[in-house]
Protein backbone atom coordinates (compact mmCIF):
# COMPACT_ATOMS: atom_id res chain seq x y z
CA UNK A 1 0.00 0.00 0.00
CA UNK A 2 0.88 3.66 0.02
CA UNK A 3 2.52 3.51 3.45
CA UNK A 4 4.98 0.84 2.32
CA UNK A 5 6.16 3.11 -0.46
CA UNK A 6 6.82 5.89 2.00
CA UNK A 7 8.67 3.51 4.32
CA UNK A 8 10.98 2.46 1.54
CA UNK A 9 11.99 6.03 0.82
CA UNK A 10 12.19 7.66 4.26
CA UNK A 11 12.83 6.35 7.77
CA UNK A 12 9.45 5.48 9.30
CA UNK A 13 9.00 7.44 12.55
CA UNK A 14 7.26 5.85 15.59
CA UNK A 15 4.45 8.37 15.32
CA UNK A 16 3.05 10.07 12.24
CA UNK A 17 0.60 12.60 13.65
CA UNK A 18 -0.88 13.23 10.21
CA UNK A 19 -1.94 9.56 9.98
CA UNK A 20 -3.63 9.81 13.37
CA UNK A 21 -5.60 12.94 12.53
CA UNK A 22 -6.54 11.48 9.16
CA UNK A 23 -7.75 8.21 10.68
CA UNK A 24 -9.57 9.40 13.78
CA UNK A 25 -12.71 7.56 12.69
CA UNK A 26 -10.85 4.27 12.19
CA UNK A 27 -9.16 4.60 15.58
CA UNK A 28 -12.42 5.44 17.33
CA UNK A 29 -14.21 2.50 15.70
CA UNK A 30 -11.39 0.15 16.76
CA UNK A 31 -11.53 1.44 20.33
CA UNK A 32 -15.31 1.02 20.49
CA UNK A 33 -15.11 -2.51 19.10
CA UNK A 34 -12.39 -3.31 21.65
CA UNK A 35 -14.60 -2.13 24.50
CA UNK A 36 -17.59 -4.08 23.15
CA UNK A 37 -15.64 -7.33 22.73
CA UNK A 38 -14.23 -6.98 26.26
CA UNK A 39 -17.55 -6.07 27.88
CA UNK A 40 -19.42 -8.98 26.28
CA UNK A 41 -16.67 -11.42 27.30
CA UNK A 42 -16.50 -10.29 30.93
CA UNK A 43 -20.27 -10.02 31.41
CA UNK A 44 -20.98 -13.42 29.83
CA UNK A 45 -17.98 -14.87 31.68
CA UNK A 46 -19.35 -13.59 34.99
CA UNK A 47 -22.83 -14.93 34.20
CA UNK A 48 -21.31 -18.39 33.74
CA UNK A 49 -18.71 -18.13 36.51
CA UNK A 50 -21.06 -17.15 39.35
CA UNK A 51 -23.15 -20.35 39.24
CA UNK A 52 -20.02 -22.41 38.56
CA UNK A 53 -18.25 -20.75 41.48
CA UNK A 54 -21.20 -21.38 43.83
CA UNK A 55 -21.30 -25.04 42.82
CA UNK A 56 -17.52 -25.41 43.20
CA UNK A 57 -17.71 -23.74 46.61
CA UNK A 58 -20.56 -25.88 47.95
CA UNK A 59 -19.82 -29.25 46.36
CA UNK A 60 -16.55 -31.09 46.81
CA UNK A 61 -17.62 -33.50 44.08
CA UNK A 62 -17.82 -30.83 41.36
CA UNK A 63 -14.97 -28.62 42.56
CA UNK A 64 -12.23 -30.73 40.98
CA UNK A 65 -13.86 -31.07 37.55
CA UNK A 66 -14.81 -27.36 37.43
CA UNK A 67 -11.27 -26.25 38.22
CA UNK A 68 -9.74 -28.78 35.82
CA UNK A 69 -11.99 -27.78 32.94
CA UNK A 70 -11.62 -24.02 33.40
CA UNK A 71 -7.89 -24.57 34.00
CA UNK A 72 -7.52 -26.37 30.68
CA UNK A 73 -9.44 -23.59 28.88
CA UNK A 74 -7.10 -21.08 30.50
CA UNK A 75 -3.95 -23.00 29.58
CA UNK A 76 -4.72 -23.49 25.89
CA UNK A 77 -3.18 -20.55 23.98
CA UNK A 78 -5.74 -18.09 22.65
CA UNK A 79 -4.72 -18.57 19.03
CA UNK A 80 -5.19 -22.34 19.36
CA UNK A 81 -8.57 -21.88 21.02
CA UNK A 82 -9.73 -19.66 18.16
CA UNK A 83 -8.34 -22.19 15.67
CA UNK A 84 -10.38 -24.97 17.33
CA UNK A 85 -13.58 -22.99 16.92
CA UNK A 86 -12.96 -21.50 13.50
CA UNK A 87 -13.92 -24.55 11.37
CA UNK A 88 -17.28 -24.63 13.16
CA UNK A 89 -18.19 -21.04 13.91
CA UNK A 90 -16.23 -19.34 11.11
CA UNK A 91 -14.72 -15.85 11.06
CA UNK A 92 -17.40 -14.43 13.32
CA UNK A 93 -17.66 -12.50 16.53
CA UNK A 94 -18.99 -15.72 18.09
CA UNK A 95 -15.62 -17.44 17.60
CA UNK A 96 -13.87 -14.52 19.27
CA UNK A 97 -16.30 -14.35 22.18
CA UNK A 98 -16.33 -18.08 22.96
CA UNK A 99 -12.54 -17.97 23.16
CA UNK A 100 -12.46 -14.79 25.26
CA UNK A 101 -15.17 -16.00 27.65
CA UNK A 102 -13.29 -19.29 28.07
CA UNK A 103 -10.28 -17.37 29.36
CA UNK A 104 -12.18 -15.40 31.99
CA UNK A 105 -13.75 -18.46 33.63
CA UNK A 106 -10.79 -19.80 35.64
CA UNK A 107 -9.88 -16.36 36.99
CA UNK A 108 -13.48 -15.55 37.95
CA UNK A 109 -14.43 -18.94 39.39
CA UNK A 110 -11.22 -19.11 41.44
CA UNK A 111 -11.72 -15.69 42.97
CA UNK A 112 -15.39 -16.39 43.71
CA UNK A 113 -14.44 -19.58 45.57
CA UNK A 114 -11.52 -17.93 47.38
CA UNK A 115 -13.80 -15.03 48.38
CA UNK A 116 -16.58 -17.27 49.66
CA UNK A 117 -14.15 -19.52 51.52
CA UNK A 118 -12.72 -16.50 53.29
CA UNK A 119 -16.05 -15.64 54.96
CA UNK A 120 -15.42 -16.42 58.66
CA UNK A 121 -17.47 -19.26 60.13
CA UNK A 122 -18.45 -17.08 63.09
CA UNK A 123 -20.08 -14.58 60.75
CA UNK A 124 -22.04 -17.35 59.11
CA UNK A 125 -23.06 -18.74 62.47
CA UNK A 126 -24.18 -15.34 63.64
CA UNK A 127 -26.30 -14.97 60.51
CA UNK A 128 -27.90 -18.32 61.18
CA UNK A 129 -28.46 -17.36 64.79
CA UNK A 130 -30.24 -14.23 63.61
CA UNK A 131 -32.65 -16.47 61.71
CA UNK A 132 -31.25 -16.14 58.16
CA UNK A 133 -32.38 -18.92 55.86
CA UNK A 134 -29.72 -20.45 53.54
CA UNK A 135 -30.64 -18.38 50.47
CA UNK A 136 -30.82 -15.14 52.45
CA UNK A 137 -27.53 -15.97 54.14
CA UNK A 138 -25.92 -16.50 50.74
CA UNK A 139 -27.35 -13.34 49.20
CA UNK A 140 -26.98 -11.02 52.18
CA UNK A 141 -23.92 -12.35 54.02
CA UNK A 142 -21.67 -14.65 51.98
CA UNK A 143 -21.76 -12.91 48.60
CA UNK A 144 -21.44 -9.34 49.93
CA UNK A 145 -18.41 -10.37 52.01
CA UNK A 146 -16.87 -12.08 48.98
CA UNK A 147 -17.35 -9.01 46.76
CA UNK A 148 -13.80 -7.62 47.17
CA UNK A 149 -12.27 -10.93 46.02
CA UNK A 150 -14.83 -11.27 43.22
CA UNK A 151 -14.12 -7.76 41.95
CA UNK A 152 -10.39 -8.47 42.16
CA UNK A 153 -11.12 -11.40 39.83
CA UNK A 154 -13.17 -9.21 37.52
CA UNK A 155 -10.27 -6.74 37.38
CA UNK A 156 -7.77 -9.43 36.37
CA UNK A 157 -10.22 -10.96 33.91
CA UNK A 158 -10.93 -7.57 32.34
CA UNK A 159 -7.30 -6.58 31.97
CA UNK A 160 -6.42 -10.03 30.58
CA UNK A 161 -9.32 -9.88 28.12
CA UNK A 162 -8.33 -6.41 26.90
CA UNK A 163 -4.92 -7.86 26.02
CA UNK A 164 -6.34 -10.97 24.40
CA UNK A 165 -8.83 -9.06 22.26
CA UNK A 166 -5.86 -7.85 20.20
CA UNK A 167 -5.21 -11.46 19.10
CA UNK A 168 -8.71 -11.68 17.59
CA UNK A 169 -7.39 -9.38 14.84
CA UNK A 170 -6.14 -12.59 13.23
CA UNK A 171 -9.68 -13.92 12.95
CA UNK A 172 -11.16 -10.75 11.57
CA UNK A 173 -12.16 -8.90 14.77
CA UNK A 174 -9.49 -7.37 16.92
CA UNK A 175 -10.59 -3.91 18.06
CA UNK A 176 -7.33 -2.05 18.66
CA UNK A 177 -5.53 -5.26 17.69
CA UNK A 178 -6.53 -4.60 14.10
CA UNK A 179 -4.38 -1.45 14.25
CA UNK A 180 -1.47 -3.46 15.67
CA UNK A 181 -1.94 -6.13 12.99
CA UNK A 182 -2.13 -3.42 10.35
CA UNK A 183 1.17 -2.04 11.63
CA UNK A 184 2.74 -5.48 11.27
CA UNK A 185 1.35 -6.22 7.81
CA UNK A 186 2.31 -2.84 6.36
CA UNK A 187 5.51 -2.46 8.39
CA UNK A 188 4.17 0.91 9.53
CA UNK A 189 4.77 1.97 13.13
CA UNK A 190 2.06 4.57 13.76
CA UNK A 191 -1.00 2.26 13.92
CA UNK A 192 1.08 -0.17 16.01
CA UNK A 193 1.92 2.53 18.55
CA UNK A 194 -1.63 3.91 18.58
CA UNK A 195 -3.14 0.43 19.06
CA UNK A 196 -0.70 -0.50 21.82
CA UNK A 197 -0.94 2.76 23.74
CA UNK A 198 -4.75 2.83 23.62
CA UNK A 199 -4.97 -0.83 24.63
CA UNK A 200 -2.74 -0.29 27.67
CA UNK A 201 -4.62 2.92 28.53
CA UNK A 202 -7.94 1.08 28.27
CA UNK A 203 -6.66 -1.65 30.60
CA UNK A 204 -5.44 0.89 33.16
CA UNK A 205 -8.68 2.89 33.04
CA UNK A 206 -10.81 -0.26 33.37
CA UNK A 207 -8.69 -1.52 36.27
CA UNK A 208 -8.84 1.79 38.16
CA UNK A 209 -12.56 2.14 37.39
CA UNK A 210 -13.31 -1.30 38.81
CA UNK A 211 -11.11 -0.63 41.85
CA UNK A 212 -13.08 2.57 42.42
CA UNK A 213 -16.37 0.75 41.98
CA UNK A 214 -15.32 -1.76 44.61
CA UNK A 215 -14.61 0.98 47.14
CA UNK A 216 -18.07 2.42 46.56
CA UNK A 217 -19.87 -0.95 46.76
CA UNK A 218 -18.01 -2.28 49.81
CA UNK A 219 -17.30 0.65 52.13
CA UNK A 220 -16.63 -1.75 55.03
CA UNK A 221 -13.66 -3.27 53.22
CA UNK A 222 -11.80 0.00 52.75
CA UNK A 223 -9.48 -0.33 55.69
CA UNK A 224 -8.69 -3.98 55.08
CA UNK A 225 -6.07 -4.97 52.58
CA UNK A 226 -7.08 -8.52 51.72
CA UNK A 227 -10.41 -10.23 52.28
Amino acid at each position, binding site marked *: MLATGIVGAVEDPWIRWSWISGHADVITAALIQHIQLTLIAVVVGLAIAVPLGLVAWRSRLFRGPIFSLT*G*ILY*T*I*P*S*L*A*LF*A*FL*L*PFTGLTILTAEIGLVGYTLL*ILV*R*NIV*VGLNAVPDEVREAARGMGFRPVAELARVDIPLAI*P*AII*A*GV*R*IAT*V*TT*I*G*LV*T*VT*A*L*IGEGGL*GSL*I*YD*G*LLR*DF*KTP*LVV*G*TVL*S*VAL*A*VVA*DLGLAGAQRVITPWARTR*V*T*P
Partner: protein
Amino acid sequence: MSFIGQVVQWFLDPAHWQGDAGILHRTYEHVLMSGLSVLTAAVIALPVGIAIGHFGRGGILAINVSNIGRAVPSFAVLVIAVQLFGIGALPAFIALVALAIPPMVTNSYIGMREVDADVREAARGMGMRERAVLLRVELPIALPLIMAGIRTSAVNVVATATLAALVAWGGLGRFIVDGLGLQDYPMLFAGAVLVALLSLIVEFSLAGVQRLSTPAGLRSAKSSQKEDLSGTALDTAAVAA
Protein backbone atom coordinates in the same frame (compact mmCIF):
# COMPACT_ATOMS: atom_id res chain seq x y z
CA MET B 1 -15.34 -37.06 4.70
CA SER B 2 -16.16 -35.48 8.02
CA PHE B 3 -14.03 -32.61 9.21
CA ILE B 4 -12.51 -34.59 12.06
CA GLY B 5 -11.73 -37.32 9.53
CA GLN B 6 -9.77 -34.78 7.49
CA VAL B 7 -7.84 -33.73 10.57
CA VAL B 8 -6.98 -37.37 11.34
CA GLN B 9 -5.94 -37.81 7.70
CA TRP B 10 -3.67 -34.78 8.06
CA PHE B 11 -1.96 -36.32 11.07
CA LEU B 12 -1.59 -39.68 9.33
CA ASP B 13 0.22 -38.20 6.34
CA PRO B 14 3.93 -38.96 6.96
CA ALA B 15 4.93 -35.93 4.88
CA HIS B 16 3.51 -33.70 7.62
CA TRP B 17 5.93 -35.15 10.16
CA GLN B 18 9.20 -34.88 8.25
CA GLY B 19 11.54 -32.11 7.20
CA ASP B 20 12.04 -28.55 8.37
CA ALA B 21 8.34 -27.76 8.12
CA GLY B 22 7.24 -31.03 9.72
CA ILE B 23 5.57 -31.55 13.08
CA LEU B 24 8.72 -32.89 14.75
CA HIS B 25 10.96 -30.02 13.71
CA ARG B 26 8.29 -27.40 14.50
CA THR B 27 7.79 -28.91 17.96
CA TYR B 28 11.54 -28.88 18.55
CA GLU B 29 11.70 -25.20 17.51
CA HIS B 30 8.79 -24.32 19.76
CA VAL B 31 10.23 -26.12 22.80
CA LEU B 32 13.76 -24.78 22.25
CA MET B 33 12.59 -21.18 21.81
CA SER B 34 10.27 -21.36 24.84
CA GLY B 35 12.87 -23.07 27.02
CA LEU B 36 15.63 -20.59 26.17
CA SER B 37 13.32 -17.63 26.73
CA VAL B 38 12.12 -18.88 30.13
CA LEU B 39 15.70 -19.68 31.20
CA THR B 40 16.99 -16.27 30.16
CA ALA B 41 14.08 -14.54 31.87
CA ALA B 42 14.65 -16.58 35.03
CA VAL B 43 18.31 -15.57 35.16
CA ILE B 44 17.22 -11.92 35.01
CA ALA B 45 14.01 -11.98 37.06
CA LEU B 46 14.60 -14.37 39.96
CA PRO B 47 17.61 -12.56 41.49
CA VAL B 48 15.65 -9.30 41.30
CA GLY B 49 12.49 -10.72 42.90
CA ILE B 50 14.43 -12.62 45.56
CA ALA B 51 16.58 -9.60 46.43
CA ILE B 52 13.55 -7.32 46.71
CA GLY B 53 11.83 -9.89 48.91
CA HIS B 54 14.91 -10.47 51.08
CA PHE B 55 15.71 -6.83 51.70
CA GLY B 56 12.08 -5.76 51.80
CA ARG B 57 12.55 -2.68 49.63
CA GLY B 58 10.77 -1.96 46.35
CA GLY B 59 7.82 -4.27 47.01
CA ILE B 60 5.38 -1.99 45.23
CA LEU B 61 7.52 -2.28 42.11
CA ALA B 62 7.67 -6.07 42.40
CA ILE B 63 3.89 -6.36 42.69
CA ASN B 64 3.04 -3.82 40.02
CA VAL B 65 5.43 -5.10 37.39
CA SER B 66 3.12 -8.04 36.72
CA ASN B 67 0.01 -5.88 36.79
CA ILE B 68 1.62 -3.71 34.14
CA GLY B 69 2.81 -6.80 32.27
CA ARG B 70 -0.75 -8.03 32.12
CA ALA B 71 -1.97 -4.76 30.64
CA VAL B 72 0.48 -4.79 27.72
CA PRO B 73 -0.84 -7.15 25.03
CA SER B 74 1.72 -9.85 24.19
CA PHE B 75 0.75 -9.47 20.54
CA ALA B 76 1.82 -5.81 20.69
CA VAL B 77 5.11 -6.68 22.41
CA LEU B 78 5.86 -9.09 19.59
CA VAL B 79 5.11 -6.61 16.82
CA ILE B 80 7.10 -3.86 18.58
CA ALA B 81 10.05 -6.28 18.82
CA VAL B 82 9.81 -6.79 15.07
CA GLN B 83 9.99 -3.05 14.51
CA LEU B 84 13.08 -2.86 16.70
CA PHE B 85 14.96 -6.00 15.69
CA GLY B 86 13.61 -7.07 12.30
CA ILE B 87 11.78 -10.33 11.64
CA GLY B 88 12.63 -13.91 12.59
CA ALA B 89 13.89 -15.62 15.73
CA LEU B 90 15.58 -12.66 17.49
CA PRO B 91 12.50 -10.44 17.96
CA ALA B 92 10.48 -13.49 19.01
CA PHE B 93 13.11 -14.39 21.63
CA ILE B 94 13.35 -10.85 23.00
CA ALA B 95 9.57 -10.45 23.18
CA LEU B 96 9.18 -13.79 24.97
CA VAL B 97 11.89 -12.95 27.52
CA ALA B 98 10.24 -9.59 28.19
CA LEU B 99 6.88 -11.29 28.73
CA ALA B 100 8.30 -13.98 31.03
CA ILE B 101 10.01 -11.61 33.47
CA PRO B 102 7.08 -9.94 35.35
CA PRO B 103 5.34 -13.03 36.81
CA MET B 104 8.69 -14.40 38.00
CA VAL B 105 9.65 -11.15 39.74
CA THR B 106 6.27 -10.88 41.45
CA ASN B 107 6.00 -14.49 42.57
CA SER B 108 9.55 -14.78 43.87
CA TYR B 109 9.02 -11.52 45.76
CA ILE B 110 5.78 -12.79 47.33
CA GLY B 111 7.43 -16.13 48.11
CA MET B 112 10.22 -14.39 50.02
CA ARG B 113 7.85 -12.03 51.82
CA GLU B 114 5.64 -14.88 52.97
CA VAL B 115 8.49 -16.44 54.93
CA ASP B 116 7.39 -16.11 58.54
CA ALA B 117 9.37 -13.43 60.39
CA ASP B 118 9.52 -15.78 63.39
CA VAL B 119 11.15 -18.46 61.28
CA ARG B 120 13.77 -15.96 60.12
CA GLU B 121 14.32 -14.86 63.68
CA ALA B 122 14.67 -18.44 64.88
CA ALA B 123 17.26 -19.13 62.17
CA ARG B 124 19.26 -16.11 63.33
CA GLY B 125 18.85 -17.22 66.95
CA MET B 126 20.34 -20.56 66.00
CA GLY B 127 23.42 -18.63 64.92
CA MET B 128 22.90 -18.73 61.17
CA ARG B 129 24.63 -16.00 59.20
CA GLU B 130 22.65 -13.86 56.72
CA ARG B 131 23.79 -15.96 53.78
CA ALA B 132 22.69 -19.17 55.50
CA VAL B 133 19.34 -17.63 56.47
CA LEU B 134 18.79 -16.77 52.81
CA LEU B 135 20.04 -20.02 51.28
CA ARG B 136 18.89 -22.54 53.87
CA VAL B 137 15.72 -21.01 55.28
CA GLU B 138 14.14 -18.33 53.09
CA LEU B 139 14.79 -19.81 49.66
CA PRO B 140 13.55 -23.35 50.43
CA ILE B 141 10.35 -21.95 51.95
CA ALA B 142 9.85 -19.58 49.02
CA LEU B 143 10.62 -22.20 46.40
CA PRO B 144 7.05 -23.37 45.67
CA LEU B 145 5.94 -19.81 44.89
CA ILE B 146 9.08 -19.17 42.85
CA MET B 147 8.21 -22.28 40.87
CA ALA B 148 4.64 -21.02 40.48
CA GLY B 149 6.03 -17.88 38.85
CA ILE B 150 8.21 -19.91 36.50
CA ARG B 151 5.20 -22.05 35.60
CA THR B 152 2.98 -19.03 34.88
CA SER B 153 5.70 -17.54 32.70
CA ALA B 154 6.41 -20.80 30.88
CA VAL B 155 2.76 -21.32 29.97
CA ASN B 156 2.55 -17.70 28.77
CA VAL B 157 5.69 -18.10 26.73
CA VAL B 158 4.54 -21.31 25.04
CA ALA B 159 1.29 -19.54 24.15
CA THR B 160 2.94 -16.41 22.82
CA ALA B 161 5.53 -18.42 20.88
CA THR B 162 2.52 -19.56 18.85
CA LEU B 163 1.91 -15.96 17.81
CA ALA B 164 5.56 -15.67 16.79
CA ALA B 165 4.69 -17.51 13.58
CA LEU B 166 3.28 -14.15 12.51
CA VAL B 167 6.69 -12.53 12.59
CA ALA B 168 8.20 -15.03 10.19
CA TRP B 169 9.47 -17.43 12.80
CA GLY B 170 8.67 -21.15 12.95
CA GLY B 171 7.27 -23.14 15.84
CA LEU B 172 3.93 -24.87 16.02
CA GLY B 173 2.10 -21.60 15.40
CA ARG B 174 3.11 -21.94 11.73
CA PHE B 175 0.42 -24.58 11.18
CA ILE B 176 -2.24 -22.27 12.62
CA VAL B 177 -1.08 -19.11 10.89
CA ASP B 178 -0.56 -20.86 7.54
CA GLY B 179 -3.82 -22.75 7.98
CA LEU B 180 -5.56 -19.40 8.45
CA GLY B 181 -3.82 -17.87 5.44
CA LEU B 182 -4.48 -20.80 3.12
CA GLN B 183 -7.93 -21.47 4.59
CA ASP B 184 -6.67 -25.01 5.15
CA TYR B 185 -8.90 -25.80 8.12
CA PRO B 186 -7.66 -29.35 8.78
CA MET B 187 -4.09 -28.01 9.09
CA LEU B 188 -5.32 -25.11 11.24
CA PHE B 189 -7.15 -27.51 13.55
CA ALA B 190 -4.22 -29.93 13.69
CA GLY B 191 -1.93 -27.04 14.63
CA ALA B 192 -4.34 -26.06 17.41
CA VAL B 193 -4.29 -29.64 18.72
CA LEU B 194 -0.48 -29.67 18.80
CA VAL B 195 -0.20 -26.27 20.48
CA ALA B 196 -2.87 -27.14 23.05
CA LEU B 197 -1.18 -30.46 23.84
CA LEU B 198 2.24 -28.84 24.30
CA SER B 199 0.77 -26.15 26.58
CA LEU B 200 -1.05 -28.68 28.72
CA ILE B 201 2.05 -30.88 29.00
CA VAL B 202 4.11 -27.87 30.12
CA GLU B 203 1.44 -26.78 32.60
CA PHE B 204 0.96 -30.20 34.16
CA SER B 205 4.63 -31.15 34.35
CA LEU B 206 5.59 -27.82 35.92
CA ALA B 207 2.69 -28.17 38.35
CA GLY B 208 4.24 -31.51 39.32
CA VAL B 209 7.70 -29.95 39.72
CA GLN B 210 6.16 -27.22 41.82
CA ARG B 211 4.58 -29.78 44.14
CA LEU B 212 7.89 -31.62 44.46
CA SER B 213 9.70 -28.38 45.23
CA THR B 214 7.77 -27.93 48.47
CA PRO B 215 10.22 -28.72 51.31
CA ALA B 216 9.33 -32.00 53.03
CA GLY B 217 8.86 -30.28 56.37
CA LEU B 218 6.17 -28.00 54.95
CA ARG B 219 4.45 -30.60 52.83
CA SER B 220 2.34 -32.51 55.34
CA ALA B 221 1.14 -29.57 57.37
CA LYS B 222 0.44 -27.12 54.62
CA SER B 223 0.09 -29.15 51.46
CA SER B 224 -3.54 -28.39 50.68
CA GLN B 225 -3.21 -24.77 51.69
CA LYS B 226 0.00 -24.29 49.73
CA GLU B 227 -1.55 -25.64 46.60
CA ASP B 228 -4.41 -23.19 46.82
CA LEU B 229 -1.93 -20.42 47.35
CA SER B 230 0.35 -21.27 44.49
CA GLY B 231 -2.52 -21.26 42.06
CA THR B 232 -3.73 -17.91 43.26
CA ALA B 233 -0.38 -16.29 43.88
CA LEU B 234 -0.90 -13.60 41.27
CA ASP B 235 -4.49 -13.10 42.24
CA THR B 236 -3.58 -12.67 45.87
CA ALA B 237 -1.15 -10.02 44.73
CA ALA B 238 -3.85 -8.32 42.75
CA VAL B 239 -6.26 -8.40 45.67
CA ALA B 240 -3.62 -6.80 47.85
CA ALA B 241 -2.69 -4.15 45.31
